[in-house]
């Protein structure tokens, strides 16, 4: 009973948050709603007994990703309202709903068979974190390491991409310098 109440509550909240994220015209609202949605999702993980995953979700998303987004938004004028030309709403919603129905249909049909054999069964008598650790460092060791390298690469890439000409500051330049820079940029764009 408690589980059901929790599920429906968080389901409602997550849906709402995400809905706000995709519909609001304020970037800041969207960011906040997304962060909230992420935290609500971790609740499902806890309900499902995947404690470690829930913790990671909160740490990574709300901590790291959202912080990154927040920093990113500082580069742009995030306070100004985002102008978005809207296309045909009917197509957008229609396609989405159609996709949803189809996925549900697929889920409803063949997945609920019982002949799925667990590849890495839950180990009795061990906590979730323990289990995760055991599987992650035995069976998924190589992917895990690869994922680590990938994160490293992504980090470097992020720094390199974003950090180009970090030392330039438009506010500190005079008009002539800005003009020069613009010219340079234009050239680059053209090339």
């Amino acid at each position, binding site marked *: 009973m408690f589980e059901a109440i929790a599920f429906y509550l968080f389901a409602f909240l997550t849906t709402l948050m995400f809905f706000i994220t995709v519909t609001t015209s304020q970037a800041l609202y969207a960011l906040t709603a997304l962060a909230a949605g*992420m935290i609500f999702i971790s609740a499902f993980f806890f309900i499902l007994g995947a404690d470690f*995953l829930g913790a990671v979700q909160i740490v990574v998303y709300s901590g790291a990703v959202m912080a990154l987004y927040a920093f990113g938004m500082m580069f742009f004028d995030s306070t100004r309202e985002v102008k978005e*030309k809207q296309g045909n709403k009917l197509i957008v919603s229609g396609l989405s709903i159609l996709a949803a129905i189809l996925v549900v249909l697929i889920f409803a049909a063949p*997945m*609920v068979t019982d002949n799925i054999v*667990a*590849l890495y069964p839950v180990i009795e008598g061990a906590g979730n974190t323990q289990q995760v650790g055991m599987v992650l460092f035995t069976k998924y060791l190589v992917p895990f390491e690869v994922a680590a390298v990938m994160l490293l690469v*992504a980090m470097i890439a992020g720094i390199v*991409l974003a950090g180009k000409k970090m030392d330039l500051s438009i506010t500190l330049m005079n008009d002539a310098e800005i003009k020069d820079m613009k010219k340079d940029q234009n050239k680059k764009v053209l090339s």
Partner: protein
Amino acid sequence: MEIGLNHYLVLSTILFSIGLVGVMRRKNLLLLFFATEILLNSVNIAFAAISHYYGDLTGQMFAFFVIAIAASEVAVGLGLLIVWHKRHNNIDLDSMSTMKG
């Protein structure tokens, strides 16, 4: 009232389609990234649920990796976003049409 796997799957589907809506209607690149996060997370829910109901840890493992990928995506994506913004002073999707065939 028992909450079964299907409930989670339906929830995941709903979130997924909200993500799709976002992907399709957002013209701001940053907000588009938000929508992709939603997509990834909706799948994570499904993974975790399946993992739970079948007593198999594979789902959780996949969810981990999805999170890792999401994190790196954000890192690289934001980097690119900043570069674009520096050049063009906007991050409007409609301005990105150099791949016109």
